[in-house]
């Protein structure tokens, strides 16, 4: 008996036994086949990491601890993870499969770590904003862009315009677009923003059919801004004379419809100028025709 135990413990048999146990530990133990299979041990072979698309966002406490005293490093690392979320390990995930409510939490966490950086807003607007299910997902995008820009409107006004784009053209939510456009138009004058930023509410109001308010905004811009470039002035005149005028013409039979007197004056002046030009052109044509007839008659007389 001692010899048997000694042989068993000699090493080789023990190694073979343990190796076999390891194989079964990995592969599992199943008895039977097909539908009658009885699983005694599942095996670690089937245990794989959970490659979720968007990991669960941590709490504020956890973030504070995980930064390890270096907020910027953690911000860049986490933003990189969010940029590549769902597309790691050879995967390609459609944006409609992302959990945007969880993504929104990550975006706000990242903004809390570094509100100055422009890493996250382009990612949100240009990439995550292209979801195949805009009605479900874009509200999160718009909410984030608005809150990000609210932190420093003078420097972050561009993200208001991005939020307006998603709201107006993809969600067709003109009320929300107007609120965002008013925030955009209210940015400080020294922000260095182009003139269309101040004009944005007018475009939204025009789309809503509020022509009076739209025209009033444009006229006020012309009144309050000096040194407007010729191209900008031409556009604003075109906006009033063509776009506002065309819509006003459709609504003129509505007794409740009214338009800013200044706009009305511009539109009427433009109509008058066009009528005079038309008349002048007709007069010129008539004179040319009469002249041609006289020339023809004089030539006939000469021949004769």
């Amino acid at each position, binding site marked *: 008996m001692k010899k048997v135990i000694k042989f068993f413990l000699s090493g080789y048999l023990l190694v073979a036994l343990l190796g076999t146990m390891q194989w079964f530990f990995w592969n599992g133990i199943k008895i039977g086949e097909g539908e009658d299979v009885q699983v005694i041990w599942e095996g670690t072979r089937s245990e794989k990491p959970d490659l979720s698309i968007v990991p669960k966002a941590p709490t504020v406490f956890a973030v504070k601890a995980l930064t390890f005293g*270096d907020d*910027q490093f953690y911000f*860049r690392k986490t*933003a990189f993870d969010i940029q590549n979320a769902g597309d790691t390990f050879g995967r390609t995930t459609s944006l409609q499969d992302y959990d945007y409510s969880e993504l929104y939490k990550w975006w706000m966490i990242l903004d809390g770590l*570094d509100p100055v950086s422009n890493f996250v807003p*382009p*990612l949100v607007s240009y*990439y995550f904003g292209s979801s195949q299910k805009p009605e479900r997902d874009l509200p999160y995008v718009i909410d984030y862009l608005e809150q990000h820009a609210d932190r420093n409107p003078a420097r972050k006004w561009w993200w208001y315009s991005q939020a307006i784009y998603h709201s107006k053209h993809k969600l067709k939510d003109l009320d929300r677009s107007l609120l965002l456009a008013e925030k955009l138009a209210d940015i400080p004058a020294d922000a260095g923003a182009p003139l269309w930023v101040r004009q944005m509410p007018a475009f939204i109001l025009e789309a809503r059919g509020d022509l009076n308010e739209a025209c009033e905004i444009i006229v006020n811009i012309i009144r309050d801004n000096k040194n407007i470039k010729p191209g900008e002035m031409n556009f604003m005149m075109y906006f009033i004379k063509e776009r506002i005028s065309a819509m006003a013409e459709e609504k003129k039979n509505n007794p409740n419809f009214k338009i800013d007197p200044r706009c009305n004056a511009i539109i009427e002046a433009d109509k008058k100028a066009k009528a005079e030009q038309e008349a002048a052109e007709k007069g010129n044509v008539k004179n040319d025709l009469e002249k041609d007839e006289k020339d023809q008659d004089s030539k006939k007389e000469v021949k004769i």
Partner: protein
Amino acid sequence: MLTTIKYILITALRDKLFIGLFIAMFIVFGLSVFLGSTALVEEDGAIDAYIGGSSRLVLAIGLIVFVCFHVRTAFDNKEIELLLSRPISRTSFVFSYWMGFAVIATIFVVCLSIAMFLFLNVSGYGLFYWSAGLLMESYLFIAFALFASLILRSAVSSVMLCFGFYVMCRMMGFFLYIVDQPHLFKGYFGDIIEKLLIFVSAILPRLDLYADSKWLIYNAVNDTSHHWFIWQTLIYVPFLLVMAVIDFKRKQF
């Protein structure tokens, strides 16, 4: 003192510290540039932050391990006794040992800063303050590593203690944030933990105010905390060295 400093540098060469740490820094540099360049926007900011954060950790780990094992090996090989047989006081010995390690740390930080200035798009002002913060941090954890390796008999224990100290100090901002949340500390044990946290935050240095990666990207111009690391180091390093001297003077050989 100069002799001891030279001795430290020679042992660093002997232990291939310079080669090892320079290779580690090079790998960190390359990985950071690679990963940062894949960012959708602000590639330069990502590269700067990765290099800043990771090189700081590599330097801390490398120097702590070197200091702890070097001192313990010196005790085991009786090199300490040989050095003390010269006409050098124990106080001078401790300070010259620290100076030697500080010179090594300075070499690494200066080389890293030059490499970052030459190869990265980083503002000079921010890099200067970040490098100064990293240097001060190095001096501080070297002083603690020296202190730990002098008071403890095992090199591994010294390294563990230093890592624990480093982690606690880097997370000190988080602990202070917790202290400001009164709803977390309820009851008798909550009071004890709150007071313990306040006590710990009072005696440990704020390493989270040192070498902030955002200085590399946004400059340190508007950040008032970039002066604190200087004063913290001027207070804490002598504090640690004096404690090390007190313990070393009591040692019997």
